[in-house]
């Protein structure tokens, strides 16, 4: 039996982690979780996940973005695909789209609340295109780019 695919969940919301961990584990993925950026960066380097699910991370608002830039700049982990989880629409009319991935160093977006089938579909798609995504060059931290839907 081949080694299971490893997914790291990064979110400060315990419920979110518990729910999505259950979904992903039930589908054969190996899952670990971090509640903040510092723990996440260490975990990424030591555990070497195949995919990162990263929350934008309210309440600091931008912790997730900055972590994404750090991951992308770090040669050790810059090729790991990032699925960014957003719940920003709770606060504004802003939405992220795949196009934003061109200037935000993430590969795909998914909005809370997350439905199991949507999460699994995006995870599968990202893992399938892993090679292509890794070609993305490291980028500068330009802060948050938002656009109105």
């Amino acid at each position, binding site marked *: 039996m081949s080694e299971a695919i490893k997914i790291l969940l990064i979110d400060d*919301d315990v*419920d979110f982690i518990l*729910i999505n961990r*259950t979904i992903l584990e039930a589908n054969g993925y190996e899952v670990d979780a971090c509640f903040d950026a510092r723990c996440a960066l260490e975990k990424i380097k030591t555990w070497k996940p195949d995919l990162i699910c990263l929350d934008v991370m309210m309440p600091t608002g931008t912790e997730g973005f900055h972590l994404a830039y750090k991951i992308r700049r770090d040669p050790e982990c810059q090729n790991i695909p990032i699925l960014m989880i957003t719940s920003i629409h709770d*606060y504004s009319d802003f939405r992220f789209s795949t196009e934003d991935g061109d200037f935000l160093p993430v590969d795909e977006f998914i909005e809370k609340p997350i439905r199991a089938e949507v999460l699994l579909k995006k995870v599968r798609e990202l893992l399938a295109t892993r090679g292509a995504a890794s070609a993305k060059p490291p980028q500068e931290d330009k802060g948050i780019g938002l656009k109105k839907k």
Partner: protein
Amino acid sequence: MDNQVRLLIVDDEEIIRIGCQRILEETYATVEVAENGRLGWERLQQEPFDLILLDLMMPEMGGLEVLEKVQALDPEMVVIMITGFATIETAVDAMRKGAYDYLPKPFTPEELRTKVSRGLEKRRLILQARALILERDRNLLECANEKSRTMTIINCLSEGLIATNRTGQIVLMNPAAIKMLRPQVDSVIGRTVSGLLGHPEQEKAIAEMLATVTATGAITQMEMQTCDERVLESHVSPILDDHGECLGTVTVLLDITQDKKIEKMKSDFVRLVSHELKAPVAAIAGYLNLIIDGLTASQPDKEKDIILRSRDKANALLDLINDLLDLSRSERNRSAGVQKRLDLGAVLTETVKFYHNEAQLRHLELALHLPTTIPPVVGDAEALGRVFANLIGNAIKYTPEGGRVDVELIQRDGWLAIAVRDTGMGIAPDEIKKIFDEFYRSRQVILQKIPGTGLGLSIAKQIVEAHRGYMEVESAVHQGSVFRAWFPIADALPTAAPVV
């Protein structure tokens, strides 16, 4: 016969006096005589006359002296000097001094009539002119009053008012408008808005709006932000003449900064509440989906954990909704609560009793210290009960086992306070100011996962303030906190609230 005219003849020669009187009485109603200057002057001081026939040479008081006095008394009184040939030069001198004419002796009745009639005509004209001047002055005064009244009204408006002419030059700007726009120059009259506000974009927007209104005659409305971050709402209307031609514009400015702030606070609050409500519901829905999808079927422990978490979330939601209802109630009751004279000691005893079990369960000492006499406070017992419950409940919730909570009543300078002192975890100095904010929960509380909505203190503060009281808090991390809610004592004249 002219009934209005009053004549006076002052002459020491009886023949002339009587003769003149007789002739003039044919035409005029009142013709009086005086036989010398002094008597004549006395008479003149008693009653007004239109015309005087005044002999130059008289004993006791000469004609020139009388003339001088008459001039001072009524400069418009017509004086005709009666004079002999020998004194013609003096008569001419008298005319220089203000006499209207002179009548050299001897004179015919016709000459007398002509001179008097002409003199009276002159008097009539003088009086008419004076009346006209008076009327004109009165009209001018009225105009001025009317104008200044209108200006006073305009200057006292709390709304800003600006009028411009067709070319956009300012013709009027009231003090409120000056205060709102803070123009960069001392005198704005005659200037256009350009370069006036030190804000080119805003000036351009205003100029464009004024031009549009002038061109179209349509009433326009605009909102703008000033350099100092205030929000003004402007309504611009055209000033139209009788033919519907636009003569300029009149702009009314309203400072809506406060309204905007309240609007924003309201929408921020709604957003915050929606988020606070949505998060637990989303979590519950997520947990239920796991169970429905059978993802936890093989792990009964995990399933139970998920169900318990869901129940806790549901309970927290209920607490939150109850707090929100309290919040809206305390806001509604801000002005109209049930105001009664209360014995806070009784309300407090009741609340402490309620928390006794909980304190015991958590191995905490809960003690109430009441003074022997407690002055009354005016308020709503139910609302104040909520405040005390919140403060005592918090103290119990945030104090570790083995600690103590002391509740007491303190009196000082017309104020009464309930103080709740605990030996709990305390509040960090940078968080003390925020703990009364809606939904704020301290880092320590979140870390230790103590349930709460972050609304309790905010509600308590509102209720206390609705009772004209205030809250104060002292705290030291790991040592404990003391919360005091101060209320003005009924009947006492409370001094100003001490600075916290």
